[in-house]
């Protein structure tokens, strides 16, 4: 493998600035790597080699002229297929949007382009971001680079796998209930869900508007901070975006990497651990906690009693919003159009019904049905209304916990990556994977997942989650970077150094091709 591929975005930025490499060389290396391993990994749904190389050449020209647009100018990136990219297919992993070419860019994509980051392509995902394994993609699953028979997490398994497989140094993901952090945990990468409103959702095809957030998917905490600062900040096109400057995230990551955590109070959430969590995951979690204490942090146990209802509330609010958000996919203006069989002179309604039936997968239909039911007259108060109350109580739990702790921590996901197909027939088992990540979405607070090591029983990556109060994303970066530094010292390098080589494996596995 070309050694340029394993470098962090921060190092690549420095190398580009120093003239040690070019964006064309770097982008070309990523494209080669994709060609080499993505047949096995299937992280990408669409690769835009031509567009990425053209942007890389333009970036090199800017660098040569001494006027780079941004520190990350020229560093290539992969984008989750739920973000609108002008002229590049955007399918959300669904058959109903097969071939749809958006006429506009999501705000985060526009910011990437303005900063000069070549977009390598669009990454695979569970259909409309509904899932925890990327198996619900209409275009076939993504495989975990650590073990190609296992899931890469979801819904953003494509972005996490692309970064873990060194196909891209950076990626964008979206997180509604853990779709950035859980894939990060099971692929040994870093994922951040920013504060709700911290990053524009304009151009993010909504699953659940009040929960969705765009965030960075990277291999290091510092890279995540660099990318977060680039995409974050107020957007007048998104009413829910927060109109105030981001805290210094890169500075917080650098400060954390120096290792000193004196005076930082770390709250261990009692409800996010124990029963239902894999032993190896818990062992790595406890060890990580010890490292933070060694760095000077103070550990307190906190209780968030309403977290036990988070999953139930989430599975009412999310499908309710999704049922309405996905109503627009009706074959009238764009996307798949299917004429019903055995219907003469079909009405618009007949065509809508047939197209939605053919275009949506089972998990999407399940959630639309759930949400439609929960919002129905006579059930609204008992379901949606009640869930919103739980949501308020969860936010209060966070408030109280942040009264005694600066950050809260937990394992990111209860288990390491499970086998492809293992939980497909049991939605509840699948949903339980997001147990620890969902509360942050319900309360709108930021969270980061940092690799905590490999579980002893299966040798697969586990994740350590750090949650902070809304708008205090910098705390996630500080603590995350401190943990990353301590663990790397212990391991003698990044966790991904221990990942198997894909070049041997790829010949034996048949993945759907990009």
């Amino acid at each position, binding site marked *: 493998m070309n050694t340029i591929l394993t470098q962090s975005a921060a190092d690549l930025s420095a190398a580009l600035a120093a003239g040690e490499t070019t964006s064309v060389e770097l982008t070309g290396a990523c494209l080669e790597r994709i060609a080499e391993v993505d047949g096995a990994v299937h992280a990408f749904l669409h690769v835009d080699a031509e567009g990425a190389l053209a942007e890389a050449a333009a970036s090199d020209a800017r660098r040569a002229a001494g006027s780079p647009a941004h520190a990350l100018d020229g560093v290539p990136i992969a984008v989750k297929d739920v973000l609108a990219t002008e002229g590049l297919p*955007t399918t959300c992993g669904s058959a109903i949007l097969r071939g749809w070419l958006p006429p506009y860019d999501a705000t985060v994509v526009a910011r990437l382009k303005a900063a000069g980051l070549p977009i390598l392509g669009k990454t695979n995902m569970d259909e409309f971001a509904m899932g925890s394994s990327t198996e619900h993609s209409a275009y076939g699953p993504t495989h975990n680079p650590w073990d190609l028979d296992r899931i890469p997490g979801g819904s953003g398994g494509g972005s996490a796998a692309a970064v873990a497989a060194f196909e891209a140094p950076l990626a964008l993901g979206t997180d509604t209930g853990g779709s950035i952090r859980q894939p990060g945990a099971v692929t040994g990468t870093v994922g951040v869900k920013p504060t709700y409103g911290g990053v524009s959702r304009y151009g993010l095809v909504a699953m659940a508007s*009040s929960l969705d957030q765009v965030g960075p998917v990277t291999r290091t905490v510092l890279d995540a901070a660099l990318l977060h600062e680039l995409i974050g900040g107020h957007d007048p096109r998104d009413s*829910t975006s927060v109109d105030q400057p981001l805290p210094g995230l890169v500075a917080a990551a650098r400060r954390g990497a120096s290792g000193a955590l004196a005076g930082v109070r770390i709250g261990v959430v009692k409800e996010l651990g124990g029963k239902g969590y894999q032993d190896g995951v818990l062992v790595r979690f406890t060890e990580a906690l010890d490292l933070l204490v060694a760095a000077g942090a103070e550990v307190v146990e906190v209780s968030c009693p309403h977290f036990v209802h988070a999953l139930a509330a989430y599975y009412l609010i999310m499908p309710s919003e999704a049922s309405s958000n996905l*109503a627009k996919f*009706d074959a*009238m*203006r*764009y996307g798949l159009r299917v004429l019903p069989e055995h219907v003469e002179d079909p009405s618009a309604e007949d065509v809508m019904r047939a197209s939605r039936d053919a275009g949506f997968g089972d998990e999407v239909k399940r959630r639309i049905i759930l949400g439609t039911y929960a*919002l129905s007259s006579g059930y609204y108060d008992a379901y949606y209304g009640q869930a919103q109350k739980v949501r308020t109580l969860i936010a209060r739990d966070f408030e109280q916990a942040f009264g005694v702790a600066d950050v809260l921590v937990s394992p990111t996901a209860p288990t390491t990556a499970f086998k492809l197909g293992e939980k497909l027939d049991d939605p509840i088992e699948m949903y339980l994977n997001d147990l620890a990540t969902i509360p942050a979405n319900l309360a709108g607070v930021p969270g980061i997942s940092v690799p905590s090591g490999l579980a002893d029983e299966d040798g697969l990556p586990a994740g350590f989650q750090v949650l902070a109060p809304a708008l205090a994303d910098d705390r996630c970066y500080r603590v995350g970077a401190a943990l990353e530094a301590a663990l790397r010292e212990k391991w003698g390098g990044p966790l991904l150094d221990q990942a198997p080589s894909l070049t041997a494996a790829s010949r034996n596995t048949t993945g759907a091709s990009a």
Partner: protein
Amino acid sequence: MSTTQHLIAWDDVLASYDPALGLEVHVELNTRSKMFCGCPTEFGAEPNTQVCPTCLGLPGALPVVNRKAVESAIRIGLALNCDIAEWCRFARKNYFYPDMPKNFQTSQYDEPICFEGFMQVTVPGEDGADETVRVEIERAHMEEDTGKSLHVGGATGRIQGADHSLVDYNRAGIPLIEIVTKPITGMGERAPLVAKAYVSQLRDLIVALGVSDARMDQGSIRADVNLSLSPRGAGTLGPRTEPKNVNSLRSVERAVRYEMQRHAGVLDAGDSILQETRHWHEDTGVTTSGREKSDADDYRYFPEPDLVPVAPSREWVEELRGTLPENPTLKRARLQQDWGFTDLEMRDTVGAGAFGLVEDTVAAGAAPQAARKWWLGEMARRANDTGVEIAELGVSPLDVAAVQALVDSGSINDKLARQVFDGLLAGEGTPEEIIAARGLAIVSDEGALGAAVDAAIAANPAVADKIRDGKVAAAGALIGAVMKEMRGQADAGRVRELILEKLN
């Protein structure tokens, strides 16, 4: 089309039933951009040219509230004596229809921005004098309009029988304010007039506020009239129907009257009223069955998660209160007194849509009765002949005032003034230019007049003798002859004087 309806005679309806009205009026705001995006709102543009990802509901696009629309909503609410919410949200009204890009309408549900208001509506009373009816306003809320379906290939332009349908999304996302009354009961025979007067005065209010074009014919004001009957004295509300496509004030009145007679027919026959929308046919004056509308229609409303709550500060609300124009009803009462109009004269003026025109004509210097006479007589006749509203005739209040000033100064008379209006409508220039070009000025040349009078006396010796004998009334015949000779361009009073002088 449904079968012929059995209508009950009007007096019999009133003898047996009490009507209850509920009015929902949609006002299309005249903001420069749409409710949730920056697209322009011009009426009549090429289909699908005023659209963007947001109003087309493309995946990923998000709404942003138009502050000007909120301002207009608050001003309407204040003018209707409503409370203004300190905090309210938008809600999604979910239903599938091709002209609705997102398959939900962003509207307001249980948290309207304006609520609990009222409007004093003036209606003609039984003795001819005006009476005031207080109409309670339940709410006024903000929402977005839908696109417009065009059904092609059918005979009626309706969806039934059409080959295919086209959708124009230019209208999708245009800001609407929906104003909903509480049930209006106890109106008896006045119910149709109250409905009409309410819509008419609401329109005047909207015009005075300047927040909408307020054109019923273009759909910028749309009135849905809910009507139900209950047995006299029962004090209950019966099942209601809602005529759609009621596109003029006259139709509001007719549709209510028709539905009352139709309901009574159904109820008298022992049947029950189906709760539904009805299609009003302007040409035939009947309604036909539309879409069944049960109270169980489930729109699965929930708070719009893509928008933040609207929380107008009290300072802003008070600032907007300061921008309200004079209440049109109060203003009408004030001007009626100033002008010395009777209730009937005032009602006719308002009914003809000439109130503002008369006001502006008086402001330009004309006497109120002269202004009224021109607008309700000559202009109303011309408008009627050409099938337009008098306001759109092409004659301005300034024109009328200028013509009247020329009449007052004796330069022209009423008959010549009509020719001046011909010239104005033909675009021949100012009244003065038209008078000069058409040679319409009254002849005040005493020589020419004297010659014409002499000629008339000479031609009618018998008449002249009568006048000499003191039968002054006979002068009319000679005046007529002179006026004819002068082609009307003489001051009849002066002609009379000359005749009497010469025959004394």
